[in-house]
């Protein structure tokens, strides 16, 4: 399950951030996960529960904000949310779209305790 790989990438990044900022601990972590990123929220939470044990970030509450898929049409320039994975402009039926959101896998913010 690749959500474990993702958490195994997350933990050292947070640990490094704590070290560089000389913070005592992290209390909360907010992630943004795009609906099209291929990552499942439940699986990510499960992987986090397992992998964070014994690490410097153990005990920090993980929040995941799922980001919907949105796009803009290169023909009529409207922006819209994509539903049911239908990549057609709802206004002109065009297929020349630019994806604006939905692929995110981002560490958005953390709440830390200062030393």
């Amino acid at each position, binding site marked *: 399950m690749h959500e474990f790989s993702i958490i195994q990438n997350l933990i050292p990044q947070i640990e490094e951030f704590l070290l560089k900022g000389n913070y005592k601990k992290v209390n909360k972590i907010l992630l943004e996960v795009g609906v099209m990123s291929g990552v499942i929220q439940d699986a990510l939470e499960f992987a986090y529960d397992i992998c964070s044990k014994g690490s410097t970030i153990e005990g920090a509450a993980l929040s995941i904000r799922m980001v919907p898929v949105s796009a803009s049409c290169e023909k009529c320039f409207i922006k819209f949310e994509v539903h049911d994975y239908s990549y057609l402009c709802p206004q002109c039926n065009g297929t020349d779209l630019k994806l604006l959101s939905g692929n995110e896998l981002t560490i958005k913010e953390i709440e830390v305790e*200062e030393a």
Partner: protein
Amino acid sequence: MTTKVITIDTQILEKNEIAASENRELFKKHKVLAINLLSSPGSGKTALLVNTCTVLKEKINVSVTVGDLQTEADALRIARSGVPVVQINTGTACHLDAHMVQLSLKSLPLAQTDILFIENVGNLVCPATFDVGEHLKVVLLSVAEGEEKPLKYPPIFQHADCVCINKTDLLPHVDFNLNQCRDNLQRICPQALVFEFSCKTGDGLSSWYNWLLNKWAAAYGEAC
């Protein structure tokens, strides 16, 4: 005890993105067109590469890196076509990542390679998340898998530059609605070029070969 909220805004897979960028730089330096080949297990990735390498090597230099959990079976099959190939065994990892591909490149003659095929682990979910530095994502499905496949696995199809429908020789024997599959692909990935062929009979493969050669020529401004 004071707490504060800090905005970070970095990618979780930052290390993978860095390795993927390094791979891209290496490909650019050696004028290599890198193609990430993705599919479910059994769709015919290896058969496609055996056919493709056998034909393309007469016109262009091809190398292959293959990912599987275990064995060198696929690498050995591809090696018989006469092109350099290296096998990556991921152990239990369900996808290739940029670092794995980077390591494999040390065993390939990149300076003498024009097209590099990266045969990913058979999996239509996880490889969608991991950029390995490729220029093109090609997703393969076979007529034995059902025309709803693109609807069931939208992330990987949504990122595809090209979709290949394989095993068309089986169409008389399976309940596969080709027109419905084409409609599904148009809905999920309208930007993707679609090829339909049979690696068993060779029918339809010449368009795929020509597309690859044209893509390399367009990338590096040279004729093949």
